[in-house]
């Protein structure tokens, strides 16, 4: 009896328990972490703890666990996927390359960390995301001028790089002071993919090669063309982070002190923690995720939205844009949001002014062209999810009784027409009586 009672009280709670990531409230997200070795869980604990402290529910699994799966009964079990398994040739369970691509295609986020000796599977996932890892499996990024100084001379594969992408939304507004330590494989961006971006690139003196063998041929990847960490924001706003180094996420790199070769300053702590924490905030949509709502338009001086406009009407347009801050929707402030009044090409293109509380508005005159128009906002900025709003509205010409009736400029024509009529009368009279 008591069991039944508990069951009955739990039923109304079910919808709450099963809510997952939604656009309205992208919090309390579940992330699947696939590892080569469960030891990574403790050796990379600082990174994982920072995710957990931000409300993510991490599910650690071995990559070859036969029970893992991304979805069940047609629903995704996770909102994000972290692949810290560079050497895995085959995933266990139902996960394979196609399943991961489908996961991203349905708008979920992905973090891939590769390393030297990365498996073909990881390379294929990266290739599908728009980056190509160096084909030599033993290759590492080597830099003889901007390596991280250590006690032993080493082979200069431990790189200290500070060539970040210049974007506050991707890396946070706080400047990253210390260089980021990187040890791993380099990749290049696919030039035909316009969605992939270099976040951390190698210095111009870097090259990618096997450090243990002599350099017989010129290396295939050199200089700033080598990307160390890249990001992708797909057209469905799914975000992907690709790193050529798994160890850059490790506690050892997070805590290590760093001095870039040739630089006198020695930093107590590398920039890895700040860099990767900020980047993971971006990847998991805690920053740079916009939503637009309350698109409104009406004639100047009226409040209701009309079903049709007339040419040369004065109208007002407003929209509200918010950015997800990780906990709540905050007003988004920018001065470059534009609205188009569009019929095959924009007839009106206007900047929207903002009240800094999320509301954007403008007023303009409907052009002297009738047809079916659209209000369009196409907002695509580096690091932000793209906004694409459109609202259709017809525009009609003047009705016949909306034209001016007596135009002063036309009085001579009126006069001519009437003089022709009187002329006709006089002529008629004269013609009839002149005989």
């Amino acid at each position, binding site marked *: 009896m008591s069991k039944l009672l508990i069951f009955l009280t739990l039923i109304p709670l079910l919808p709450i328990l099963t809510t997952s990531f939604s656009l309205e409230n992208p919090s309390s997200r579940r992330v699947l972490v696939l590892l080569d070795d469960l030891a990574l869980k403790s050796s990379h604990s600082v990174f994982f703890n920072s995710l957990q402290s931000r409300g993510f529910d991490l599910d650690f699994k071995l990559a070859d666990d036969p029970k893992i799966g991304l979805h069940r009964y047609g629903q995704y079990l996770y909102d994000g996927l972290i692949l810290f398994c560079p050497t895995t040739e085959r995933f266990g369970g139902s996960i394979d390359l196609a399943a991961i691509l489908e996961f991203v295609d349905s708008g979920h986020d992905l973090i891939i960390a590769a390393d030297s000796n990365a498996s073909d599977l990881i390379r294929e996932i990266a290739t599908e995301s728009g980056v190509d890892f160096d084909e030599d499996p033993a290759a590492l990024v080597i830099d003889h001028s901007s390596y991280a100084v250590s006690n032993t001379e080493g082979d200069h594969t431990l790189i200290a790089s500070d060539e970040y992408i210049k974007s506050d939304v991707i890396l946070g507004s706080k400047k990253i002071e210390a260089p980021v330590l990187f040890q791993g494989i380099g990749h290049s961006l696919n030039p035909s993919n316009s969605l992939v971006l270099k976040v951390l690139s190698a210095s111009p003196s870097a090259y990618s090669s096997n450090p243990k063998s002599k350099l017989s041929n010129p290396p295939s990847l050199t200089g700033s063309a080598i990307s160390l960490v890249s990001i992708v924001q797909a057209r469905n706003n799914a975000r992907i982070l690709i790193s050529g180094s798994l160890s850059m996420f490790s506690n050892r790199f997070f805590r290590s002190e760093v001095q870039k070769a040739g630089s006198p300053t020695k930093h107590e702590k590398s920039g890895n923690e700040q860099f990767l924490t900020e980047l993971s905030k971006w990847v998991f949509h805690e920053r740079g995720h916009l939503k637009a709502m309350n698109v409104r338009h009406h004639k100047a001086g009226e409040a209701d939205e009309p079903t049709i406009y007339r040419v040369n009407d004065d109208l007002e347009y407003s929209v509200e844009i918010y950015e997800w801050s990780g906990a709540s929707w905050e007003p988004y402030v920018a001065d470059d949001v534009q609205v188009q009044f569009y019929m095959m090409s924009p007839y009106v293109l206007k900047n929207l002014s903002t009240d800094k509380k999320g509301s954007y508005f403008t007023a303009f005159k409907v052009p002297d062209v009738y047809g079916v128009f659209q209000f369009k906002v196409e907002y695509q900025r580096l690091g932000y999810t793209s906004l694409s709003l459109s609202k259709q509205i017809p525009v009609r010409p003047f009705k016949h009784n909306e034209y001016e009736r007596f*135009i002063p400029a*036309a009085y*001579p*024509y009126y006069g*001519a027409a009437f003089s*022709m*009529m009187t002329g006709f009368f006089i002529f008629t009279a*004269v*013609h009839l009586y*002149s005989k």
Partner: protein
Amino acid sequence: MVKSTSKDAQALFQSLRSAYAATPTNLKIIDLYVVFSIFTALIQVVYMAIVGSFPFNSFLSGVLSCIGTAVLAVCLRIQVNKENKEFKDLPPERAFADFVLCNLVLHLVIMNFLG
């Protein structure tokens, strides 16, 4: 080829005037009416060239009413001319009735198109 002089032109106009003087009065009245319409049309074209073509429908109806009147008057002149053997069987009353009917239709259309 004989060189033409101003005397020739004068002689030409003289002969034209003397020939026209023989025209019956009712045809002369029609000619006057045609000249009046053409002149009014020309004034409107000049006016349009100066102030621009803005109420274009008004301009068109003003000018076309003049042209139409002139054309109808010319038609009437052809039909009531005694010299013209082609319309020998057509009584001038019938020609005048046609002229009035056509003018009524013309001015109805012009009124609709004017405003």
